[in-house]
């Protein structure tokens, strides 16, 4: 199976960018969480310690995964996906609530967010499924191109819907990300373009109905248009104050005032606005540039990997990162209505950073096996 591929080093640029992002992420996390840690836990380092530990575990995991040939995971794709379903179901019943959402499973002292794992599981599962379908098509032939496409689209799409529904029942944002990853993977795998336009139209129609069904979702739209008029627009507005306060060069690292309780939970979803406030437009663009380099490396690796499974894996991870980066920045700048999406590597969240780094491990593994 691995014939013709020979091992060489990891993608050095990618590896450097990842480490840079993790370190910068920890610095920014400390800056934005020190006040909240002090107020809530009388420990300025509370959040940094937890995140630092998770990052350490994640980097360790990343290196291990990167060393292992990614084909090793193929046989586990289906069972891994099954496990994601299981955990996502379990969290509905025995999950821990935090900030009004049941999203955590506790194993002793370690708590864990199944939805973060679900993203990885879906990427591996879809990469496996699509490459499998493609193999069949090439080995068995049979049927016209359009027939394959139809089956192809339907099977892949339908197979991820259960997890989207499960995760979406208490975490709409993650469900959207998973759906987005699926759409990108299928788009890349399919030679067609036109169908996707129809899919976009259908998706937009679905969203409209979905939003109209529940008035609180429409309220979100109203808040989005006019955050100053609504009490619930508070977070958004505070984020905008932070961004605006940054100006060209920012107030300097550690000098944000908005993080001092004005912007609630500054270390979470809205951390990007603290970056803007402290580092200014210039610093923010530099960080966005790091993300861009990251995506560019994914793009490059995905395009240069001859192995379809590997290419799809990287494409999935790339899709995942793209969606989170775009949605997070869009939410923080109030470009789209508020929905809780974290900024990869920087926002607080142990499970998130561990699984992100494991994904990076997968990509590094693919990069080391490019012909």
């Amino acid at each position, binding site marked *: 199976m691995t014939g013709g591929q020979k091992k060489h080093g990891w993608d050095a640029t990618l590896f450097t960018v990842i480490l840079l992002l993790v370190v910068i992420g920890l610095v920014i996390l400390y800056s934005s969480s020190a006040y909240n840690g002090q107020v809530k836990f009388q420990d300025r380092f509370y959040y940094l310690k937890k995140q630092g530990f998770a990052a350490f575990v994640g980097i360790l995991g990343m290196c291990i995964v990167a060393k292992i040939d990614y084909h090793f995971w193929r046989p586990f794709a289906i069972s891994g996906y099954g496990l994601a379903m299981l955990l996502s179901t379990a969290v509905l019943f025995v999950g821990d609530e935090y900030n009004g959402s049941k999203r955590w499973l506790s194993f002793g002292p370690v708590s864990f967010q199944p939805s973060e794992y679900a993203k990885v599981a879906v990427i591996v599962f879809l990469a496996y499924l699509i490459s499998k379908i493609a193999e069949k098509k090439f080995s068995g032939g049979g049927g016209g191109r359009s027939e394959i496409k139809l089956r192809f689209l339907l099977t892949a799409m339908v197979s991820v819907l259960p997890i989207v529904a499960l995760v979406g029942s208490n975490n709409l944002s993650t469900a959207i990300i998973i759906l987005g990853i699926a759409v990108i993977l299928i788009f890349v795998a399919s030679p067609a373009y036109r169908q996707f336009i129809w899919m976009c139209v259908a998706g937009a129609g679905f969203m409209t109905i979905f939003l109209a069904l529940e008035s609180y979702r429409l309220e979100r739209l109203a808040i989005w248009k006019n955050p100053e008029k609504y009490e619930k627009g508070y977070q958004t507005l505070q984020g905008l104050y932070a961004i605006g306060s940054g100006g060209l060069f920012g107030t300097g690292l550690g000098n944000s005032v908005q993080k001092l309780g004005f912007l609630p939970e500054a270390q979470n979803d809205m951390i990007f606005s603290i970056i803007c406030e402290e580092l200014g437009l210039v610093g923010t663009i530099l960080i966005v540039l790091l993300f861009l380099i990251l995506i560019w490396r994914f793009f490059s690796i995905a*395009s240069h990997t001859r192995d379809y499974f590997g290419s799809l894996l990287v494409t999935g991870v790339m899709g995942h990162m793209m969606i989170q980066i775009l949605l997070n920045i869009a939410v923080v700048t109030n470009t789209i209505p508020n929905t809780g999406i974290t900024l990869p590597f920087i926002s607080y969240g142990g499970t998130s950073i561990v699984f992100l780094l494991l994904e990076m491990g997968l990509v590094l593994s693919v990069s080391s096996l490019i012909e």
Partner: protein
Amino acid sequence: MAKSRTYNRKKILFVFAGFLILLLALIGRLVFLMIFDAEYYQEKAERLHEREREIKAARGEIVDANGVVLAANKTVCTVSVIHSQIADETQVTQVLTKELELEEAWVRERVEKISSMEKIKTNVDKEVGDRIREYNLPGVKVDEDYKRYYPYNELASKVLGFTGGDNQGIIGLEVKYEDDLKGINGSILTMTDARGVELDEKAEDRIEPEAGNTLQISLDYNIQSYVQQAAEQVREQKQADSVSILMMNPQDGSILAMVNVPEFNLNEPFDLGATGTDPAAQMTEEERQDALNQMWRNGCINDTYEPGSTFKIITSSACLEEGVVKLEDTFSCPGYAIVEDRKIRCHKVGGHGSETFVQGLQNSCNPVFINIGLRLGASRFYDYFKQFGLLGLTNVDLPGEAGTIMHRREDIGLVELATMTFGQSFQITPIQMATTVSSIINGGRRVTPHLGVRVLDAEGKAVRTFDYDETDNIVSKETSQTMRTLLESVVAEGSGKNAAIEGYRIGGKTATSETLPRSQNKYISSFIGFAPADDPQVLALILIHNPQGVYYGGTIAAPVVRDIFDNVLPYLGVEKGD
């Protein structure tokens, strides 16, 4: 194994390009927010972060004619705790309990209360505040502030007035000269976190306060204290309700002393003390406020009374000016006068018999004044009343001056006219009485009684000197001269003899007015005197409200003025003649 194909790469490129476009759009949005909208959001954020703390401006002082400070400022401290910054609750509680002399449980409750800032005590002495500061306890804040302070407690309380919690004048000169005294408050803009806790490392914007200007008044501390003592003495001796004494310079209207005993302690203006015989706790809020207002009243200005016989000065002046009476005119007093159907009694039951006008004034004989009043006629009497300025206000520079209570011109019948000639059936304020008599004896210039002399800046330079209106020729110089001579004879030979001092030429007139309702048999004994009689430098009016026992003005009021003149005239540099 499946291989990636060309269209896959094209699709990945397509996705990447899509991402790039969206990311660029978001960067555009960021540029928009952070460059073009920055000012808007920065301003909003700053308003959110900044807390403005006011720095009270030091209120200007009030100093007497010689620069003695009558109203000053004292630095006091406000001690508060900021819960989130407290390191050791037990220690903070202990220290504050000890230093501020408070109940421990009460302090602990406040120390343990979770709030952004909790005031423990205000108006703490600076020394105590400094001591607390030296403990260097985190979370304990000692803020300095100015508080009005009156070094002489009760001295001239109703004249000076006092200020409220926000250092704003409430009564007296403190209100009248508010604009000069108050200064301009400054402010400290501090950055705080969402809980309102100040951020130490953030720069403070500070706008310095501007202290108020000093007000110099004509009141003389020495005279005022002496007069106050004299008033207290006579009040005690005569068990009187209250005693008011007013001293002014009749030449320019400047007030040298204004005493209304009982005075109250300006440093504790809300303490009813002995004035409230009921325990304050049993009073309703309204009753309490009434009692306070009563305590704060300046009788010389806020209250009116029937002047009684002292008003004969004014009747005399009007009749002499009009020429309806001459000094040599003789009258006969049978002990009463009949006006229309009324029999109006003279105070001397048996009557004064035959007497000249001069003797009539010396005897304070009512029938003489009824007689000359009727000669003058109601309409002319009213004209003089008006000409002397008795209908209007004196415009003294104190708040709440009461107006004259007077008949309408068309309502003055013969009986009313008769009673008015000896100072009954209408009411004026003591300040009005003193001012009108001053104007009659100073050569006929109606002066404006006043306290404010000038406004000084911090260096003691005059910023503003007050000018007061004068109206010339309310009586002729000749009449004025005659009145001085007549009134001197009242003290030298007549009813005012108890005010006489060997070596000084003193003029004056006594009065004993019965207050309304007459059935209560309450009296106001009064005396108005001036010296030297040939060139008056000082005029004094004393009112003793409801004295017990002997209540004749000549007996109890005149000696007080004599005593005051005996001490004040040498102090003012008025030398004894031969």
